[in-house]
């Protein structure tokens, strides 16, 4: 028995490897990636991530025996005055849950990416960039592990910035592509800058924490919360609200959500891993980790919950009006993150974490399936192009008219074809069977249809919301209806009806290296609900060791029925609009007829980007212009130009003294000596 315990707790010592293993994979690819070849490069990265998953599993087993967890110290980092920050890995049920999700979903996405990037680097015309992708991906896993396993705010911030960096690098992976050749870098910059605004809030929160609590270590801070709450409640409010700014940045909440849709410029595995399953949930994790602070500041909790609820509904409305397959999923992610933030905001930490886990499964599944669809479409596009070319060549042989046909074929090629536009798709159900089924599973899970994972987790959030924040509950319920609607719209537009382009008609299924991870994720999306079944609450009991005093949510049949009904209603509505009859080629979205101007607003994302442009970017640029023209060019520039010119003219005067004649130097020495003597004599 004792031996068993030693074996069990022995695993805790492995904790640092959760970071080191992906780093080793990264270094291997960084140093030898080019010479390894694609297969080896991709599998090394996948193995590194998979090994991290194994370590996470071992930690989880040890936690099963010792649920209180422990802290593993790797070394000292900063010791200055009372500030003492170390590289400490915190092993408790919350962090290990995150590790399992990150490494587990991450590994599947790594494997998928081997197949996806093989095509993508060729499609974009630079196969040598293949290993770089996996370097970034492994670096991301390592940074994310630092984030979730940190035992103090500062180490967490290291991971927080690290994942932000990887996000930036991966959004701009094809940095020379995109609109006007700068579209992708602009998207990357937008993500980076928006996240900096959030990070600024988190930094301020950390400063206030250190100032008032004298430490950045989690337990030390949380222990003193009741004391500080009595002494100065305003401090807690400030901390939690500044932290909320960080959460809004990283988890793409109102008002800082604008970067996430643009982040879809990155390759699709990146969208799945970073911008759906893991990094963007860091904000949710942060609130859950800092639950002691939030519970002590009820008004901040309400703010968080309302931000989450409003985001959920707002983003869901925008998702309805999008025609890019990835943009729909991006807004869906924002909306679902709103659900999670609302949940952890109102104090339903287990429900929020539960939805985080299930969402990681089904949203990664949806994104990867969307990537599969996109690549199928790209294949179809190539096939269509070749067919047109062959046709033209044949015609040319037979008649003079062939020249015209050849021209026509080329004209078609030059017209830009968007393989991500759902209006070009349709009827892919028969062309891509596996992808279709897996997508359907993900879509139904996202819509919240019984018995898939999304049903249980969303229902739990709704139950808690009804008790804790009734106002937010209605927002979330409306968002759930819209969720089912836009996901149904997407499924019908992409997979049903008839092909609306040659590319769609010639699309083909992708190889198993891509479809197998989809299958595994689909399985998880089906079974994920079992993690926290009503009445059993296995996840709740598991997290109880970390997040104390959380009453288990009660399952209510009427509400679950209502939620299911809402989901089915949304899907039905989508069918009646998009599925009743096949959409013709070049169709006008049926919603535009029914909603008119509202649909235009949805399509343009409520003009939020334009609003920010007017409200923030243009005034900022104008202020910069004023400062540069008047202050910089008018005052500072002449000042330093004058200094420089004065120095130069002084120098050109003084250089005459250095004339190269030894005797004049000797005279100068003499005069100097005489002057010093005179001074000494007559002072």
């Amino acid at each position, binding site marked *: 028995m004792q031996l068993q315990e030693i074996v069990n707790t022995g695993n805790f010592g492995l904790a640092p490897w959760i970071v080191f293993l992906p780093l080793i994979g990264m270094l291997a690819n960084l140093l030898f990636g080019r010479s390894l070849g694609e297969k080896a490069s991709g599998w090394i990265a996948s193995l590194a991530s998979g090994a991290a998953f194994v370590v996470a599993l071992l930690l989880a087993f040890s936690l099963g025996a010792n649920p209180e967890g422990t802290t593993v110290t790797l070394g000292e980092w900063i010791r200055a005055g009372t500030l003492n920050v170390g590289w400490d890995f915190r092993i408790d049920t919350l962090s290990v849950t995150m590790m399992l999700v990150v490494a587990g979903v991450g590994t599947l996405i790594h494997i998928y990416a081997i197949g996806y990037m093989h095509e993508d680097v060729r499609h974009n015309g630079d196969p040598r960039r293949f290993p770089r992708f996996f370097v970034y991906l492994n670096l991301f896993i390592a940074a994310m592990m630092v984030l979730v396993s940190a035992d103090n705010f500062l180490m967490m911030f290291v991971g927080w910035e690290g994942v932000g960096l990887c996000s930036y690098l991966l959004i701009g992976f094809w940095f020379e592509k995109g609109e006007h050749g700068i579209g992708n870098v602009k998207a990357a910059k937008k993500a980076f800058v928006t996240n900096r605004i959030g990070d600024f809030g988190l930094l301020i929160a950390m400063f206030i924490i250190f100032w008032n609590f004298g430490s950045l270590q989690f337990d030390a801070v949380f222990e003193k919360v009741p004391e500080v709450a009595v002494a100065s409640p305003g401090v807690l409010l400030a901390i939690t609200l500044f932290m909320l700014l960080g959460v809004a940045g990283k988890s793409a909440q109102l008002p800082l959500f604008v970067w996430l849709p643009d982040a879809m410029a990155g390759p699709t595995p990146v969208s799945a891993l970073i911008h759906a399953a893991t990094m963007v949930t860091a904000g949710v994790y942060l609130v859950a980790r800092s639950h002691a602070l939030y519970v002590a500041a009820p008004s901040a909790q309400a703010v968080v919950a309302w931000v989450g609820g409003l985001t959920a509904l707002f983003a869901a409305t925008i998702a309805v009006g999008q025609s890019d397959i990835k943009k729909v999923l991006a807004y869906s992610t924002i909306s679902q993150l709103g659900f999670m933030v609302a949940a952890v905001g109102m104090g339903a930490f287990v429900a929020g974490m539960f939805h985080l886990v299930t969402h990681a499964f089904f949203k990664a599944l949806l994104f990867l399936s969307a990537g599969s669809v996109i690549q199928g479409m790209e294949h179809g596009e190539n096939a269509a192009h070749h067919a047109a070319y062959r046709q033209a060549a044949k015609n040319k042989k037979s008649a003079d008219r062939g020249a015209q046909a050849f021209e026509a074929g080329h004209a078609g090629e030059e017209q830009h074809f968007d393989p991500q536009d759902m209006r070009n798709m349709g009827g892919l159900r028969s062309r891509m069977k596996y992808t279709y089924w897996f997508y359907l599973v993900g879509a139904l899970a996202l819509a919240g249809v019984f018995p898939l994972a999304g049903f249980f987790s969303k229902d739990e959030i709704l139950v808690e919301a009804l008790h804790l924040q009734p106002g937010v509950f209605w927002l979330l319920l409306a968002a759930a209806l819209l969720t089912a609607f836009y996901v149904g719209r997407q499924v019908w537009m992409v997979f049903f009806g008839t092909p609306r382009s040659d590319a769609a008609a010639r699309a083909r299924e992708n190889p198993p290296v891509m479809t197998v991870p989809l299958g595994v994720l689909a399985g998880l999306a089906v079974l994920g609900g079992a993690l926290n079944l009503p009445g059993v609450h296995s996840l709740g009991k598991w997290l109880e060791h970390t997040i104390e005093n959380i009453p288990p949510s009660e399952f209510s049949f009427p509400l679950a029925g209502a939620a299911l009904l809402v989901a089915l209603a949304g899907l039905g509505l989508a069918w009646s609009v998009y599925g009743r009859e096949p959409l013709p080629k070049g169709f006008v979205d049926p919603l535009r007829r029914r909603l008119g101007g509202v649909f235009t607003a949805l399509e343009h994302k409520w003009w939020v980007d334009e609003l920010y442009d007017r409200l923030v970017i243009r005034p900022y640029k104008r202020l910069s212009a004023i400062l540069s023209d008047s202050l910089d060019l008018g005052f500072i520039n002449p000042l330093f130009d004058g200094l420089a010119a004065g120095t130069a003219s002084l120098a050109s005067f*003084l*250089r*005459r*003294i*250095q*004339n*190269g*004649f*030894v*005797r004049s130097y*000797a*005279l100068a020495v*003499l005069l100097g000596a005489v002057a010093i003597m005179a001074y000494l004599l007559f002072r």
Partner: protein
Amino acid sequence: MVPLSYYLVLSVIMFTLGVIGVLVRRNALVIFMCLELMFNAANLAFIAFALFYQNLNGQVFVFFVMTVAAAEVAVGLALMVAIFRTKGNIDVDQVSTLKG
């Protein structure tokens, strides 16, 4: 006994001659000799003071000055040979390329 002031006046005259020679002559060899003149003016003053104050330190200093002057002459003459080889004469005004 000759008064101290006689020595000093002679020393001043020698030193002034040396200074003027360094400033006005262009032949490096002559400049060198003028430098030696200034050294010896200083030496004379040292010895005069040593005698006047009955203190050996001045005499010791003279030996140092003479040693250093010998070393300096060795270096200086070597320089002069080098200058002569490149320029063909030892006019110091010809050696004026290093200027601002």
